[in-house]
């Protein structure tokens, strides 16, 4: 029970601090120090003067030069074995796409052994595609008499609620009747956000007060879906850190509730923001363990981020990307296509 140990340590430190402070108060020094550092009250006459812009031209030049390197990866036409310089170029492209150091090194090794019979660009393309061969079909049906549930998990701010809204649109367009479970009872107004999507898509929604038990919301949604003969339940959950056991336990519990009769979890999607770096791998690992993730929804791919970390996730954990978000509109959430993803990765 190290936790207890830590807490005691914290109490000791805290009391030292307070004790030190109380002594200071009782024995004022010759020079009276204010109790607290005064707020900096530098009054400015107009607008606060802004610090000079640091243009850092050297950085600009670096970025520019890296851009030309990207162009070079396509122009490398040498056939057969690869030179160190060519490998360096490929490494840079992969690192800049957030593929990550370990996976990049592994890919380079594969590349080195395979060589480049059709040029470097083709070789790295096929190496990447070989990493993305997971099963990407999406289950929409459950066993006889059960209601299929899609559960959505992820850290804060990746776009879980929006993704659910968009998928609700797709599914209702496809003629399925959908019940939304507003399982994010933590973030202020998350249920309101989902409610608006329900209205837009003509879906049913089950929600509870803020702070309510998310498991009970999901449970109620299952009951509602069964009563109305709905085809699919989309269950939202609150965003949570992937490094906190208690929050992950809560998630596991929500999943158990959703998987109990009459429900059956047929897909658990981890929603991932394409701008995320190496932390995404730990997220995937933890959520996989806690909630048995079956697929990834990669959002915000319409920006400058490449989302290369999903290559590492699929290679290491075998979780395939199933949907990608490439824009704000509902129809901008599309099924994942490895070929075009790899192309965009390499054209960074």
């Amino acid at each position: 029970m190290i936790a207890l140990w830590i807490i005691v340590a914290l109490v000791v430190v805290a009391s030292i601090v307070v004790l030190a402070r109380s002594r200071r108060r009782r024995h004022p020094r010759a020079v009276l120090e204010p109790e607290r550092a005064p707020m900096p009250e530098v009054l400015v006459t107009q607008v606060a003067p802004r610090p000079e812009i640091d243009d850092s031209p050297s950085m600009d030049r670096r970025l520019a030069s890296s851009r030309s390197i990207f162009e070079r990866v396509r122009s490398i036409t040498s056939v057969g074995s690869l030179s160190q310089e060519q490998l360096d170029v490929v490494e840079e492209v992969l690192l800049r796409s957030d593929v990550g150091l370990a996976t990049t090194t592994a890919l380079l090794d594969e590349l080195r052994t395979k060589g480049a019979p059709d040029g470097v660009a083709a070789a790295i393309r096929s190496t990447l595609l070989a990493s993305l061969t997971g099963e990407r079909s999406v289950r929409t049906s459950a066993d006889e008499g059960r209601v299929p549930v899609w559960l959505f998990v992820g850290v804060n701010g990746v776009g879980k609620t929006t993704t659910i809204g968009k998928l609700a649109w797709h599914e209702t367009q496809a003629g399925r009747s959908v019940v939304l479970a507003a399982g994010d009872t933590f973030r202020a107004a998350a249920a309101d956000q989902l409610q608006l999507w329900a209205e837009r898509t003509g879906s049913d929604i089950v929600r509870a007060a803020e702070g309510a038990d998310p498991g009970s919301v999901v449970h109620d949604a299952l009951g509602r879906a069964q009563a109305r003969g709905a085809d699919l339940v989309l269950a939202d959950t609150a965003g949570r850190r992937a490094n906190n056991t208690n929050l992950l336990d809560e998630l596991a519990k929500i999943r158990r509730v959703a998987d109990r009769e009459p429900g059956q979890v047929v897909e658990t999607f981890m929603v991932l923001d394409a701008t995320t770096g190496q932390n995404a791998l730990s997220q995937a690992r933890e959520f996989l363990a806690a909630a048995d993730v079956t697929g990834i929804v990669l959002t915000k791919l319409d920006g400058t981020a490449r989302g290369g970390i999903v290559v590492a996730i699929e290679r290491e954990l075998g979780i395939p990307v199933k949907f990608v978000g490439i824009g704000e509109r509902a129809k901008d959430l599309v099924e994942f296509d490895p070929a075009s993803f790899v192309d965009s990765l390499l054209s960074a």
Partner: protein
Amino acid sequence: MFDSLSGRLERLSTSLRSRGRLSDADLAEALGEVRTALLEADVELSVVRAFLDAVSQRVRGENVAQSLTPGQHVIKAVHDQLVEVLGGTALKVTYSSKPPTVVLLAGLQGAGKTTTAAKLAKWFKAQGRQPYLVGTDLQRPAAVEQLRVLGGQIGVDVYSDTTDPVAVARAGVAEAQRLGRDVVIIDTAGRLAIDEALMAEVRRISAATDPHYTFLVIDAVTGQDAVHTAKSFHESLELSGIIVTKLDYDARGGAVLSARGVVGRPVVFASTGEKLDDFDLFHPDRMASRILGMGDILSLIEQAERTMDAGAMADSAQRMMSGAFTLDDFMAQLNQVRKMGSLGGLMRLMPGMTKEMRDAAKNVDDGELNKIEAIIRSMTPVERREPQIIDGSRRARIARGSGSSVTAVNQLLKQFDQMKKMMRQMGGGAMPQLPGGMGKMAQLAARGAAARGAELPPGFEAMASGLKAGAPSPTPGGGPKGKKKKGGRVTPPKQR
């Protein structure tokens, strides 16, 4: 990042320790380690390169101090460069003489702008200001509603209407002026830096409200893209600083270095947890210490001073020193600690944490405190005053009453006893024999308090002065040795 960087530096230091002189190959290997650590921490590639160039120049350019081994020399160069890149001391927030002072928040979707707006408002309120929130995110469904709920929680009014973002911002500032509020925080919709139309809109908001501060809100787990984002927003809006969110997700957070490196503007605030309290000024110098595994005791002390009830704490601390410390006092202190924010966030600031403790800390949350409180509350008042009377059957009763196990009750009593003994030693002016990481923690706490001009109890004076001699050691996790038992630390209590 910082776990992996300090870990690698430590290993590096060991491998270089035996060398008398640093060869080019040694340096190349060392820089390779640093490169790996930075890339694993998501620091952007060009920022990594610039960083390595600078470190290598430092190593070659400076005269090697006699006292430093080659390994320490490299580590010192890395440390100094880190401090330089992170950028000196914290930014001072100043206020306009013609209120309100306008603060504009911008960033990508999901970076945490709305929550940050509320946290920032709470921070200004704690500074004695009267903040006002303006919600211009009319795009994301229920974004304004979220801001209103959060505003309600912290007691700050929120302005919004449904016209258009620019008009809302303008009207919001005017309303703040009418109400006599002195700080206005404008929340904006999340937008992609390459979305020209939305970037033009936020520029219009900026032009209409002429903000004194424009902050980019950026997620600490952002990867290589942090640089693009920071750069584009800076070009459009001329940022005055950066706010990092979700710094509690991962010890890495290389986005801090990337964004800072490319924009050249300071990181001003950092958010380290879900609670509205887990937010404070970002102190680059302290962050540098944290990277080196020295913890961030100054932030911890400030947080304690801000939230704790000084009178109550001082009383029980005094009793603690005199040996008349009871479990009631202990519980009161636990509750004070609870007020300081989430335990996970506090743990991160603790110096001298061993690896086991750090790992355990990840899973400590407020539930642990509840368990302890339940155990103490299951004791009779007499038992709380005189825990020595708690025998086997009392233990079993307490365990039943609190829904825990006898082992847990035993653990608690043992810890309490140790703590009491330790505090009495200190009260008597002796150097207490603190086990393991806790010794280092207390030392650093003492030093931190001393640095702030506090008078220390006798036991701690000795401790702090032991540390004050000499500049901060360049060795990560360094500190005076000597009080530790052989092997560096006492085995922490067994895990259940």
